[in-house]
């Protein structure tokens, strides 16, 4: 699952992530594509605080970074 959070400013990308993490199975991944510069540290911090796993980063065709998160529980 990919969430498009382009143009959404801090803290909206992690809110989008929180709203949709339950939409994927435990063990599956969800990617939030966000161009806000605060998204990188905030997604990592959200994963730490909510005990999910930050798997890595992708780059969309338009260059927007995508943060790949695995649902752990």
């Amino acid at each position, binding site marked *: 699952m990919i969430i498009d959070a382009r143009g959404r*400013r*801090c*803290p*909206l990308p*992690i*809110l989008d992530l*929180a*709203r949709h993490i339950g939409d994927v199975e435990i063990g599956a991944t969800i990617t939030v594509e966000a161009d*806000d*510069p*605060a998204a*990188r*540290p*905030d997604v*990592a*911090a*959200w994963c730490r*605080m909510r005990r999910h796993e930050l798997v890595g980063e992708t780059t969309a065709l338009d260059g927007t970074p995508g943060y790949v998160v695995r649902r752990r529980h």
Partner: protein
Amino acid sequence: MPAYLDAAAGAPLHPVAREALLAALDDGWADPGRLYGAGRRARLLLDAARESVADSIAARPDELSFTANATQALHAAVLGTLAGNPRSNTFVHSAVEHSAVLLAAQSHVARSGHAVSVGVDELARVDAETFVAAATAAGVAAAALQAANHEVGTSQPVSALAAAIGAVPLIVDATQTIGHASVPTGWSVLAGDARTWGGPAVGLLAVRTGTRWRSPFPDDERESGRVPGVPNLPAIVAAAASLRAVEATRSAEAARHARLVQRIRTAVPELVPDVEVLGDADERLPHLVTFSCLYVDGEALLTALDRHGFAVSSGSSCTSSTLEPSHVLVAMGALTSGNLRVSLHHATTEVDVEDFLAVLPALVAEVRAELGATGL
């Protein structure tokens, strides 16, 4: 009751500073560089202020110059040390230095210089081994390390690293430390900020005897050739008088601030769900505390607190003009959303802190509700 809790951006004027400033406006208006009577009186005031401040920071009076403000002191510290060591081209600094240091580094790079940024851990403490390796590599003209971080309060191991890097000049930004904690030893060039101890806008620039430092400005004989132009003498006199007053009660005041900071560090995670308190719990500035709240728009929270009369600061991106989150929070890997820095000063009371803690939980909940984040 409202409270001003942003001392790190500038404490309210200390009563001793106000008194000295008013007296010096009458007595110290003349140019201390002139030889007539009023100029000589001004020179005596300037010399006395310099001796007093130098004594507080363990410097010799001739090592200390006054600048217009802390930013100018930091720029002169970095660019002057680089200019004094022209055969080397690299400037090493921690990733969490004040933006004035980072912008000076950028200006060095723009003039074909080289800069190396050394990372920090999750508490904002610099990676000591990497810092020493980078600073002692070939071609390093200067290294910079803050005494303590201005956003999260973590102290840096300045004295140990100064000893470890040997002859490489170490620039120490002590702008949040002077007047609040001991100034670390081992610096070659030191910068300070009178606004953080309750003085008016005056910066300190101290250059240790024997350090190669060359003015990055056009030649001017003022302030040992380090800072061009007539100094703002009334402000300098007020800065010196207030530093002397603050130093006289520093250990008791630091202990009082540390208790209030500890109260905030303990209470906020109990009162507000989903908060990360940032920075080292022990090795830190006594008067400054920072935390980040999940699902909170920092600007909305600042505005809500301001409505209740509380002035604090935020490193969240939505509160900066560039929309970039604080480089300090990013370097630490900390949550940047809903970030608040609370910093205390001579007039901060326990009641101020308790009042802040009383309004904070409902305001965070209100801002979260506006974003539809309740229950997430």
